[in-house]
């Protein structure tokens, strides 16, 4: 009997010894996550993987078509509408609900997209706000959402070794179309490092106003002023409203 126990213990020890390095060599990808998972699930799983993610407000720059207004959820309701782009600091993991109004050619209609930050950047100290994650709300996708479509847009950080040899100009972020049988998160993972997920379409708030569930608990945001680029000076100074901030 002791001999059998000793052999079993050795086998278990060897399995643990060989299995632990294999688990440690898991590639940092999201292939085991599906892009169609409910909002907040991927970010929560990302937090469980460790790293300096919890509590970090990742600057996110939300772009909208000219004329469209963006409202961020704060204190259980939507805040004042602002002209885009709007740069805010968002936590990694929670889901942020946004209201887009005054959409060109769709006046009087509203879209309520969500933004889920699932990873962060590691910019040199002092340049975090100069290199935010760029979340782009295109007019085409807003119209798709208004027509009853559900749009999932996975924003990823391009791998410089596999970057497209084209300029990123005024037309905005370069993007690919994922087919209906493909996972956009898996494709983004192959092209780079997914950092955020934008979802448009689907759910609308109740008639009496947005509930706290609709706002996903209204997670905190930090308003940051977008720094001026030395080669692309901005015409307007940082607005006072952005400096007043939503510090929590």
């Amino acid at each position, binding site marked *: 009997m002791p001999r059998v126990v*000793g052999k079993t213990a*050795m086998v278990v020890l*060897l399995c*643990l*010894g060989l299995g*632990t390095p294999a688990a440690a060599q898991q590639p940092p990808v999201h292939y085991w996550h599906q*892009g169609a998972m409910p909002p907040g699930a991927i970010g929560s799983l990302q937090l469980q993987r460790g*790293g*300096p993610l919890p509590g*970090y*407000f990742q600057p996110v720059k939300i772009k909208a078509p000219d004329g469209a207004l963006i409202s961020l959820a704060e204190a259980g309701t939507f805040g004042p509408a602002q002209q885009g782009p709007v740069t805010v*600091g968002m936590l990694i993991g929670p889901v942020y609900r946004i209201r887009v109004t005054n959409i060109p050619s769709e006046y009087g209609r509203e879209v309520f997209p969500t933004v889920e930050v699932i990873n962060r950047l*590691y910019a*040199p*100290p*002092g340049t*975090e*706000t*100069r290199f935010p994650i760029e979340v782009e709300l295109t007019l085409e*996708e807003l119209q*798709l959402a208004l027509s*009853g*479509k559900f*749009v*999932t*847009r*996975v*924003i*990823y*950080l*391009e*791998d*410089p070794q596999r*970057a*497209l*040899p*084209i*300029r*990123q100009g005024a037309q905005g972020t370069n*993007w690919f*179309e*994922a087919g*209906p049988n*493909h996972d956009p*998160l898996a*494709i*983004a993972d192959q*092209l*780079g490092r997914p950092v955020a997920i934008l979802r448009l*379409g689907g759910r609308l708030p109740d008639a009496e106003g947005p509930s706290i569930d609709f706002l996903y608990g209204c997670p905190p945001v*930090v308003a*940051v*002023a*977008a*720094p*001026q*680029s*030395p*080669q*692309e000076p901005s015409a307007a100074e940082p607005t006072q409203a952005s400096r007043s901030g939503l510090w929590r």
Partner: protein
Amino acid sequence: MNPRPASDSTHSPWPRWWRFVVVAIGTLILCSCRAGHPVAGPYGHGPAPSPALPQQAYTGDAAAYLAEADCPGDDAAIPLPSAHVAPWTPPGARAQPWPPDEYLFDGGDQAPATRIAADWEVHGLNAEDTVGHFDTLDGRTVVVPSNRVSIYSPRFGAVRQVVSLRENEQWDPWVGIHQPLQPAGHADVQIAASSKQQYQPEGHVGRSLASIYQTKQGDGAVSNAYRLESTRRRILPGEAPAVLGQNTLEAAETAWLADGVEAALAWSRPEGLQIILDRTRATVETSDQKVETIFTVKEPEARPRLRVIKTASTPYAAPGETVDFTIRFDNVGNQPIGNVTILDNLTTRLEYVPDSAQCTVAADFFTEPNQAESLVLRWEVTEPLEPGQGGVVQFQCRVR
């Protein structure tokens, strides 16, 4: 038949020490996966800029640059409430700066190394490589890589998926429930899993303390060993131990002490060998003389060298911005070098600005497409470079 040794009585095919070896190997594997790796330093651990470069030149040391230069936008930037003071680097990360997917790299010579064939064809010049090559007086062609420049420039892409939502309403009324099976009975007999039994003590075991203490007295002589605190060895018996070790001078040791002092005086005589020549004290004394003196002149070993230093005008750039690159090349060897050529294979996200290339020495400039959908820049210096001579190449690139 010889009886088996005692160690083989278990009839196991593996010896007992083999089990311990397996257990030790498994333990080492488990511990190796949880041991802390040496934490790589922040960005400041990169190669320091060459002292020959101007102070504003950036060679990849972001921390040094940020410490000295004003960061554009610092005035308008609001510090994040949980921003890290220093850039976070995962344990064991060797790549600097980290993470590499947020940086553009240009310069150096990545594997496979660049080679120049006899027909001047270049092999192994990868994207991001910057090298210089030259011919030596003895007919060799030497390839010299530059340093590697890193520019923080993250760029984003997106993958979009559009799904159509269809509303579907369907009524499925219940038509009936038929459940013929009913429980006929239930019997559950449970056997007690534990029992309690009282045990009475069979006896009482106590411990008595000693009531008598017995001591033993010696003969009254107490011997002590003395040792000086600041010496490494003990005092020998012939070295007057009482006066040296205990600071007690006894009459019987006076003769020993006088003998020792005399011996010390014999070893501390100040006189030594002195030579006086013509009433002048000599400083060097030679014991032999040679009939001839041979003078030899050694020529320095031929060391053809070319130093290539590459710098960027900024450590970070957003897509669409322009970065000025400077390549300085110098003949730091001790003999002339010829056919000096500077090659820069631009990476995918760097786009050469036309007509922006300049060179301070006479050189022919060429461009040709590369495999990264960018360009290979080539400067061929027309005149040989004497030792100490060099030049500067400057050009602009737009970040894609």
